[in-house]
């Protein structure tokens, strides 16, 4: 019953949509990096984002909130995303195994959790501590390989 409800839910299909985008996003990043250096890939990546931003703007009827804090944080998100994406292209370019690079970089929620504890004063649950242990194990294994 619960499973049937989940499959009927809109959010479930949005998640599937995201997975459907991010799998090929990685593969395209790797395939492009075979021919193009990291800075060129990052340049193209941002241009690819423009139609997506335009679609968002049309969806919102071109009405954006005028929150200085919100806009500043949003811009910081963009600039730091670019730095991360550039490093990801560099990792693919340097010839690391794609599956390994993808899972290792996919561990970024670990850093968010640790930073949230330090700066936003959030508390860790026991399950999250266990998660950090698994992340550390993965990192040790990847550094050995």
């Amino acid at each position: 019953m619960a499973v049937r409800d989940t499959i009927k839910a809109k959010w479930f299909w949005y998640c599937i949509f995201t997975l459907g985008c991010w799998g090929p996003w990685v593969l395209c990043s790797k395939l492009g990096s075979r021919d193009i250096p990291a800075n060129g890939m990052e340049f193209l990546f941002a241009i690819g984002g423009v139609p997506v931003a335009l679609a968002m703007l049309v969806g919102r009827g071109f009405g954006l909130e005028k929150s200085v804090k919100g806009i500043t944080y949003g811009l910081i998100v963009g600039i730091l995303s670019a730095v991360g994406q550039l490093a990801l292209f560099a990792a693919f370019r340097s010839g690391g195994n794609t599956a390994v690079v993808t899972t290792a970089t996919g561990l970024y929620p670990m850093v968010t959790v640790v930073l949230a504890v330090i700066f936003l004063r959030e508390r860790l649950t026991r399950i999250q501590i266990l998660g950090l242990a698994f992340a550390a194990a993965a990192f040790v294994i990847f550094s050995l390989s």
Partner: protein
Amino acid sequence: MHISAWFFYAAVVLVAWGVVGIYQKLATNYISAESTLVWLIVGLLIFEPAVYPGKELFRYPTHGLVFGLLSGILGNLGAWGLFAAMKNGGKASIVAPFVALYPVVVVVLSPLVLHESVTPLDLAGVVCALVAVVLLSV
């Protein structure tokens, strides 16, 4: 101990995207998910002069250009799907670990599309990493 180049770059990705998670949280406290995505892409464009490849851009092979642009479209569309899932009744605690499973798609597809294989040791690392992401997001 020898540290591979990819491992160093992966650490940069971890730190940059880890901090992004914090600011994303802060941004969506003030503005909608869609607006956050718009400003995110403006932020990407601010970064463009730093990575502009100059005349080289016109010498890139066509399929490389297509993969680069597709990467931008798919990566950002995926981010929108994540925001939309949260807005349409998905709990962050379920949605975040769900979409963080995208490496599974890559692990399954990379032998087929990229003709790469994974060593048993790396596979152990991949499994640990996936378990970690799910536990951390709960």
